[in-house]
């Protein structure tokens, strides 16, 4: 008896309000809300200043990576912290790591404001390329010609973030200061009002300009928090499943992936680089070809 492959249905095209009520819109609203919260905290802190009698939290107090940097000192020095970190950093870090353990790197895809800023810039670049055909042609030509070199670099640059993670966490543990702070683009952004030049400003500039050409360059290559979250996410019971029988290999999922993963060739997407944004699931035109699944950790097939 031969098994018969049933072709999957094409998802119905949504129109009007229904087209807006997607999980992708939901994700953007969540990202926007967290980014607006951090902007509000930053403005209040800058406006009130350090000398204010009203206690205003610094946006640094909400950085989860600060929690990872201060963790060693906290447990070995009777609850003290490396400078610029507080108890809130440890709590937010716990939130990110527990989230990674249960839902993979969803913090990166759904919450992180720096990821959102990169998304916006890349979206702007896509909009520009749509409007200005010559620009699109130039960028496409450069992209095609540089493809072999870029593919090689992309493969190895993705390991840089693990080096950054080890350097930042062990550096903070050994020296008791945030050795990564001056190179951190997020720190440079939220402390911009201080008008102090740091290498982090250069990294921030490179990240923002790079986002015009590559989606989420900081997340792909250098983010130490994403590295930690991705590694822990390997233990998560959640994964993405591509049903080969329902898939037409149209590559829409791969083109939609902001982290540049080859979704269309995978059976399960459990990559440490997956940020669980679910753009691939939303863009997939076939019913049941790409779905979010829950199963036993490390057993996804």
């Amino acid at each position: 008896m031969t098994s018969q492959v049933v072709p999957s249905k094409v998802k119905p095209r949504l129109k009007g309000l229904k087209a807006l009520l997607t999980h992708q819109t939901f994700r953007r609203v969540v990202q926007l809300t967290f980014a607006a919260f951090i902007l509000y905290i930053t403005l209040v802190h800058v406006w009130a200043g350090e000398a204010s009698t009203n206690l205003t939290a610094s946006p640094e107090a909400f950085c989860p990576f600060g929690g990872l940097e201060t963790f060693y000192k906290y447990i070995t020095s009777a609850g003290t912290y490396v400078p610029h970190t507080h108890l809130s950093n440890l709590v937010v870090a716990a939130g990110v790591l527990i989230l990674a353990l249960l839902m993979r790197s969803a913090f990166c895809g759904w919450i992180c404001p720096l990821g959102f800023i990169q998304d916006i810039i890349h979206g702007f670049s896509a909009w520009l390329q749509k409007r200005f055909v010559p620009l699109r042609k130039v960028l496409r030509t450069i992209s095609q010609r540089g493809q072999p070199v870029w593919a090689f670099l992309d493969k190895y640059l993705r390991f840089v973030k693990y080096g950054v993670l080890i350097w930042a966490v062990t550096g903070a543990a050994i020296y008791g200061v945030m050795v990564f702070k001056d190179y951190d683009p997020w720190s440079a952004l939220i402390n911009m009002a201080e008008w102090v030049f740091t290498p982090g400003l250069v990294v921030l500039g490179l990240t923002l300009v790079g986002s015009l050409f590559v989606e989420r360059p900081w997340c792909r290559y250098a983010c130490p928090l994403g590295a930690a979250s991705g590694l822990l996410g390997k233990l998560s019971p959640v994964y993405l499943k591509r049903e080969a029988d329902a898939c037409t290999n149209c590559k829409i999922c791969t083109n939609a992936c902001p982290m540049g993963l080859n979704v269309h060739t995978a059976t399960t997407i459990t990559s440490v680089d997956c940020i669980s944004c679910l753009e691939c699931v939303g863009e997939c035109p076939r019913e049941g070809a790409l779905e979010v699944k829950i199963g036993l950790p490390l057993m996804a097939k």
Partner: protein
Amino acid sequence: MKINPFVYGTVVLVIFLGVIFGFQGAGVWSTSGKVDGAGKGIQPSAADVNTIKGWMTLEQVSTTFNAPVAEILSAFNLPADTPPSTALKDLESDTFDITGLRTWLQNRKKP
């Protein structure tokens, strides 16, 4: 088992905010070096250099640890005309950081 992407996003928010609000509810939360987890104000104490925080001024540290401002400035190659009301975090540079100041004060106390 399949998960709806909307449900996935909602669960992400519930877990992340749940952890944060859970800790906050248990009193494990502080966003400033000016107060501890219980909301009690932190003041520098001569007995413990770890009570020095970035928001404290040179003057506060000088008074608490009985170290003249001029001596602190000189030890860290900071400009001699730095106002004593300057917050420590605003002085951070290649030659000065709070961990360094703590170590220096700790060693200075020793006979």
